[in-house]
Every structure is written in structure tokens, then in C-alpha cells.
């Protein structure tokens, strides 16, 4: 049974730990720059709270890096040096040169790294990929996705700090950039408009992609929706058909009641999953399976790098108002 260690047991780590708990692994160790965070995770999920990285790496077989993106590089490089296969939360890193160092280090040392682009494991999105593979819609020509919610205020001010988070494009849009690359292939150029530099806590972006296949993609990434609103939408059109899904479309459950003053209605919808559907558990199970069998991972370090590159190029396009060519893109300002 593999011993799992969590580097940076913060918000996303809670979701990962809930997934790890359902897998045949031992949650063995936690490390955080804030020792009280490691202590709290150890008390809640078992394993020990480590005070040094040496102690941490000695206690684990695989590592799950859940720190903020800006700290990914140093943690990945330390894990590579320790020779432990790892999961790294998205985005792979805050800056392109950090991604390049990560990819080079993993390739040279032959240490497996799985980038937790979890959207590939959501049932709607995984089924869409399978439909494309089946040939039912022919060769895909245009893809549109939406990922829109309110600013994640409850998780602290981190997301509003562009230097740390990269704004809505690097935090939210990267899910769709990764998914669209998975479905459509490599991106040739990007054009984007957004509010990244206008109002970080109501950031919003509309991104246009051109793929090397000639296909076109559109992404809406938003932190500008009202509190409580969350929407994803997916549409892929090919030369033989179309597939569509919208989280705001008809749901399996609709409930209508009167409001408190009995002057109008409250309508709510729900789409519950069974216990067989847990995208976070599924991505971790996939990682474990690949580590044990040596099979290729669904998301490679280079996928992680390319998604960051396209996201940073989109941010550059927002800044300059110009289209950005991906092959020649250099991150100029950090």
C-alpha cells in the first residue's frame, strides 16, 4: 500500500484528501510552511505532521503537491530530487520558465508527474472526449466552453493577487485550455479580452483560440457571476455532428416552492451524482494506477506546461490587445 504525503495541506488538499481516503493508500505525512496547517491535517486525516522536508520524504512513497502555484516549482524540484512520483495541482506553475524547469527536471530524472487537470475526469467532459474519439461528430471544427462563477472570496485574498494567482485566466480558464487542447490538439494562437487588470475580484475573460488543426475554440472564464452562481457549458461541432451540454440546462431535479412572503416562487435545480462519480478520486486513482503499471498518464508535465503557456499568452493578449502566437510566445513581464 502506497504511503501518500501532502505538500501544502490547504483548500484543494481537503478535496484531494477526501479522495485519497477512498483509495487503498496510507495517508502518511503532511508538510506545510505553516506547521499548524500540517498538524491540523494530520489530526483530521491521519499520518504525521512533518517539520522538515527530509522527514516528509522519508515517510512517503508518492507526493501530492497542493501548494499555491507560485510554490509549485520548488516543491516539484524537491520531490524530483527525492525520486518520488507526484501529483501537482493545476496550474503547473505561475510562470512559464518555472514550468520549463519542472518538465526538464522530471524528464531528466525519469520521475513521474501528473498534473491535476481534473476536468478531464468530470463525467460530462470525459464522455464528450469519448464521443469525439468515437467519430460520431466527425472532425471537430469549433469548441466552446464556459466556466463561470463568483470570485472565491471565502478562500482568502490570494486569488485577487495577480502576481500570485494569475487571475481568472490562469486559475479558471486553464481548465478549459487544457480540456480544449485534449480534444482539439495544439494551439497555434490566442486572442483574449478581459478584466484581469481592471478589477481583479471581478475578473472575466473571453478567449479565442486557433488550433494548429485549423479548428477554432472559445472560452469564457469568469469570476464576475453573482454569489452562488456556477455554470459550465460545453459545445463541440464537427463535420459530422454536434455535442452539447449545459449545467444550466434541464436538470434531473427541479423543486418549486413559494417564497417566505408567499408572493412568488423559488425554483431550484439539482443534479446529484452517486458515489461512483468522484472526479477528484478518479484522477488520483488514475495517477496511482499509472505509477503502479507504468502506463502513460492522461495529463503529462508537457500538457501542464502548454496549458500554462496558452494561459499566459492569453493574459499577454489582454494586456496588449494583440493576438499572440504560441510557438514564439515568451513571457516578458512576471
Amino acid at each position: 500500500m502506497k504511503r501518500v504525503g501532502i505538500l501544502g495541506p490547504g483548500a484543494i488538499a481537503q478535496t484531494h484528501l477526501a479522495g485519497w481516503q477512498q483509495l487503498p493508500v496510507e495517508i502518511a505525512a503532511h508538510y506545510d510552511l505553516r506547521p499548524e496547517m500540517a498538524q491540523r491535517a494530520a489530526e483530521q486525516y491521519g499520518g504525521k505532521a512533518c517539520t522538515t522536508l527530509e522527514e516528509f520524504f522519508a515517510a512517503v512513497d508518492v507526493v501530492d503537491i497542493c501548494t499555491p502555484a507560485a510554490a509549485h516549482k520548488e516543491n516539484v524540484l524537491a520531490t524530483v530530487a527525492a525520486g518520488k512520483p507526484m501529483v501537482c495541482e493545476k496550474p503547473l506553475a505561475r510562470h512559464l520558465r518555472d514550468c520549463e524547469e519542472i518538465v526538464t527536471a522530471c524528464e531528466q530524472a525519469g520521475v513521474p508527474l501528473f498534473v491535476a487537470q481534473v476536468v478531464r475526469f468530470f463525467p460530462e467532459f470525459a464522455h464528450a472526449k469519448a464521443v469525439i474519439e468515437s467519430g460520431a461528430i466527425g472532425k471537430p471544427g469549433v469548441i466552446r466552453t464556459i466556466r463561470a462563477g463568483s470570485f472565491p472570496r471565502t478562500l482568502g485574498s490570494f486569488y485577487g493577487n495577480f502576481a500570485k494567482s494569475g487571475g481568472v485566466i490562469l486559475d479558471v480558464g486553464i481548465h478549459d485550455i487544457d480540456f480544449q487542447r485534449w480534444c482539439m490538439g495544439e494551439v497555434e494562437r490566442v486572442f483574449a479580452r478581459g478584466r484581469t487588470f481592471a478589477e481583479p475580484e471581478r475578473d472575466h475573460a473571453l478567449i479565442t483560440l486557433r488550433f494548429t488543426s485549423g479548428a477554432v475554440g472559445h472560452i469564457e472564464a469568469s469570476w464576475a457571476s453573482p454569489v452562488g452562481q456556477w455554470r459550465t457549458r460545453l459545445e463541440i461541432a464537427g463535420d459530422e455532428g454536434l455535442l452539447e451540454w449545459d449545467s444550466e440546462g434541464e436538470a434531473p431535479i427541479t423543486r418549486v416552492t413559494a417564497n417566505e412572503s408567499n408572493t412568488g416562487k423559488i425554483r431550484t435545480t439539482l443534479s446529484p451524482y452517486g458515489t461512483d462519480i468522484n472526479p477528484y478520486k478518479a484522477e488520483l486513482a488514475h495517477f496511482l494506477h499509472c505509477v503502479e503499471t507504468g502506463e502513460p498518464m492522461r495529463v503529462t508535465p508537457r500538457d501542464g506546461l502548454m496549458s500554462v503557456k496558452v494561459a499566459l499568452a492569453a493574459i499577454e493578449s489582454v494586456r496588449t490587445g494583440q493576438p499572440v502566437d504560441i510557438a514564439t510566445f515568451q513571457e516578458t513581464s512576471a
Partner: protein
Amino acid sequence: MSTQPIKIGIMSFAHGHAHSYAASLPKLPNVTLAGIYDDDMARGEAAAQRYGTPFYADPADLLAQSLDAVMICSENSKHRPMVEAAAGKVGYILCEKPIATTAADGQAMIDICARTNTKLQIAFPVRFSPPIQWLKATLERGDLGQVYALQTTNHGSMPGGWFVDPALSGGGAVIDHTVHVIDLLRWFWNTEVTEVYAEVGHELIHPGLGIDDVGLLSFTLANGIYGTLDTSWSRPASYTTWGDVKIEVTGEKGVIFVDAFRQHLAVSSNKVGKTQWRNWGSNMDLGLIDDFIDMIRTGREPSITGLDGLRSLEVALAAYQSAAKGQAIQLHQR
């Protein structure tokens, strides 16, 4: 988690659900499909090859394989002889719905299982649909206050084959599609149907079919709730999906609409010539089989009993009787 090895046999692939159940077995730890019997040799041999398990032309040979359980997916009228062959040879039987084509057959199956200490479960997988489970929990909490009425449908496509041969199926749309929803309602409230009135139509949708293809049941439950159920094979080949299970509840504090399978991608393919809904929701057949295996592992009583199967069959039979007499039929009056 107990990993006591479990050996399962399947008797007949006449009902297509056998494939879904067979495919569920390897997803569960230490569960083996140990063999297949089918009175249609070609069908049975094809299934045995597909699932990598032996085919037995004689049911006695399959039942001699030290099985823990069998799953019976034959034509409805053959459920009884197969249960009679298996009872006592295995400790557990999962029988496809409806339990039988006559109440006498259903009762005989329950009796022989009781005499031989064999646990009989009927396959009502919709109990394992997450939206349906949500509805049950919501009703049990009393969120709607007093429930007045239910408007339900279990529409389907016309299945053809033995389903339209009364000697094998016991009837058409009414016997095929009454039992799922009636089972759910009995389960929600631990109640019985006390009166049924039905309008049954023959060849209204499928000319020359020779059996009922439309059924509209109006019923009352012992708890005072009244409702209707449309069992019609009314989804044409050009429709988006095979059918539906919809339950709409009107109560004192509001209304709830549940459309159990509305978790899908809409896929329009020129190769198919129509738009199809591809479900990505939880696998309720896997839920059913997981529950059945859990019963074997723990030795507990079935979650869905032979009596549950018989009671829902009696409602379908009463619907035919009502249509023949032109009046409501009383049943289970206390």
C-alpha cells in the same frame, strides 16, 4: 472491505440487462462471472465468449459450479422454472423484473426460495438512481408537507423480440413498464396500491404489433395519495433516447419534478441521423449489483424482495383486468 471471493452465474441473456449486469461484475472486488447458461445456445455462447467465461448448455451443469448466486435474465415466463432450478443450489438469486407473468408464478418463486433458504432479490435498478434516492430522502424528511398527488411516466421504445410475444412476456407496455415506478412508490412510503383504473391501448403507436403498446394507469395508494402512470412504448426510433422515468410530486409546500436520467450530453450525428442523449450519470445497474453482492457478503436480507416483485406485478395485472372490465380494481384493501 471484505474480499471473500464470490462466484456468480448468469441464466439467460434474453433480457439485455444481462449485459449491463455482467459488465458490472469485474468492477467489484473479487467477484467472478463463473459461467453462463442460456436455452438459446448461440446467444449464450456469444455472451460467454464476450465475458471470457464457460458456457453450459444444461442449467444443471452451471448450477454444479459451486456458485454463490445466479442472476436470471430470461424471458419473463421462464423466470419461474429457472428460479425453481436454482433455489437451494445457490444461496442467492437476482431475478429480472417483472418477477413473473402471473401472480401464481411469482408466489411459487417466493415459496420455493423460502423453503430452500434461498434469498431472492428482484432487479429494480432505478432504486439506485441518485436523483430518485434524493427524492426518497426529501419525501422522508417531509419537506413537501402533505403529499397530494403523483404524475409519473415510464416511457420506452418498443423493444420488439420476445417482449411482444405474450406467451413469453405476459403482456406489452403495461407489464413491462408498470413495475419500476410502482416499486419506487411502494418503497418511498412503505405503502401499497389499493386501487387501479387503466386505459390500455393496442397498436395505437405500432400498427400490427399484436400486443398493448399504450398504458395509462390511475391509482390510489394506501396512504391516500393518488396518481397516474404512463407506461407507453411511445418513444419513436427517431427520439433522443430510449425512454424515461419521471416522477412529479405535488404537495402542500410545493412541487418537485424528477427526471431520473436527465444527465446527458446531446449528441447530434449525421452518421446516426438524429440527436441522441448520451447519459453520463451514475451507473444504477452497478449500484444494483453492488447491493446484491453486499447481501451475499454480509448474509443480510435482500433490499428488494420477491414480495416487492410480486406486489408491483399485481398492479400491472390489475391494470389489464381494469381495462378488460372497464372499471377500477381494488387490491390490498386492509
